[in-house]
């Protein structure tokens, strides 16, 4: 993982979707200095690579306030792990709390922003990210439902469509919800969208993409955000 984002290959003529790193960097642009931010595991964690030069406090659900980057062989501290249970470092000024205080911080509205991944996001802010089936396999929920209802803002970062090309932005979620009416903004490899009172509002699009092309890959009506 490097801070220099590799260009993703163009899929349609002239269209250059953002790579995961570029989408993460695009999201990071919108985080002001001073915010306390919780990043979900996987794709959201990439965001932490792109806030260099600004003091942003990263919170980890297991009780870390002031989490730094992933640990290396030189900086390893076995007693420090992130939500994905990878070893991490702390920044100066960091603090540690127990789980009830960590989730008090989350549920009590003290986190400025939470960034999570999702399987589906609906035009009213419903989203699904914790299980693809309530009957098959072993469900696991972790802290997603607490983060979804507790953070001041919930932004989703995900691919615009599933691996087989189906839209992940929908009128209504088909999968079991993580929380109703929780998402405020979505960053994908194709666009940045707000969840407005009338549904998805496009703030930004990948280079070369038209509204028509974006609409064709989206399962709910799009409108441009009024500036």
């Amino acid at each position, binding site marked *: 993982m490097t801070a220099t984002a590799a260009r993703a290959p163009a899929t349609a003529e002239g269209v250059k979707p953002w790579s995961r790193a570029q989408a993460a960097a695009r999201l990071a642009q919108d985080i002001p200095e001073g915010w306390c931010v919780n990043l979900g595991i996987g794709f959201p964690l990439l965001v932490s690579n792109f806030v260099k030069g600004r003091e942003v406090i990263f919170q980890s659900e297991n009780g*870390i306030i002031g989490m730094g980057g*992933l640990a290396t062989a030189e900086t390893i501290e*076995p007693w420090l*792990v992130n939500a994905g249970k990878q070893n991490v470092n702390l920044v100066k000024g960091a603090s540690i709390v127990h789980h009830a205080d960590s989730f008090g911080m989350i549920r009590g509205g003290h986190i400025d922003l939470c960034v999570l991944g999702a399987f589906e996001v609906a035009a009213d802010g419903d989203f699904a990210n914790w299980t693809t089936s309530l009957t098959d396999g072993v469900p696991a*929920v972790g802290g997603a439902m607490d983060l979804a*209802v507790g953070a001041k803002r919930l932004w989703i970062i995900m691919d615009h469509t599933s691996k087989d090309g189906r839209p992940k932005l929908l009128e209504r979620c088909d999968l079991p919800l993580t929380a109703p009416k929780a998402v405020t903004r979505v960053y994908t490899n194709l666009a940045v969208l707000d969840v407005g009172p009338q549904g998805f509002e496009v703030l930004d699009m990948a280079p070369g993409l038209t509204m028509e092309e974006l609409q064709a890959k989206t399962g709910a009506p799009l409108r441009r955000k009024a500036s």
Partner: protein
Amino acid sequence: MIDKRVKSIAEAMQGIKDGSTVMFGGFGAVGHPAHLIDGLIEQGAKDLTLVGNNAGSGRVEPLVRLLAAGRVRKIICSFPRSAGSVVFDELHKAGRLELELVPQGTLAERIRAAGAGIPAFYTPTAYGTALAEGKEVREINGRHYLLEHAIRADVALVEAYQADRWGNLTYKLSGRNFNPIMAMAASLTIVQSQHMVELGDIGPEDVHTPGVFVQRVVHVPYGGPASNLATTG
């Protein structure tokens, strides 16, 4: 003289009854009292209800061996599925292990509430989801909340970094996690500690868990959790 130190893990685990509810600390391997769980396997109590964040991975770690030995009836847990959680998956699919899946913050607060003498509370988490099924909903100031009940335990298994003979404890970094709230929520709190220190060595402002919440302490200087360096970003 107050002295909660015991000489062996076997002594620490004495008296745990069949059918007990047993909490265990840890977020994955960090702050997880694996040696006490090993002791629980040896001790023999069965028909247990476990309360913890994870359900273990692989086939070797004590938590997994306790499950595999058929000693656990039910687990109350937020994230039982992880890379290599094969034993949990097998037992759950075979209908031999009941799961109560609880959002992580709700799990923490249900444990905290028990220790603080609060029988139940309202929380916004999981309202409008499948995990709200069967729960009382209450609207307060225009927002919906679920009624969640406290989880008390017969036994809490805790991993500390330092302990003294009164049972005053400190935890190392993110090894704190569920340990302090579980120590408060059980009738019998058993601690495995990396280090034993003299009374007074832990400054009063630095005690994370006062000994009042602790019944037994055993010295287990195993060194610390295995590291988990990310190989890719």
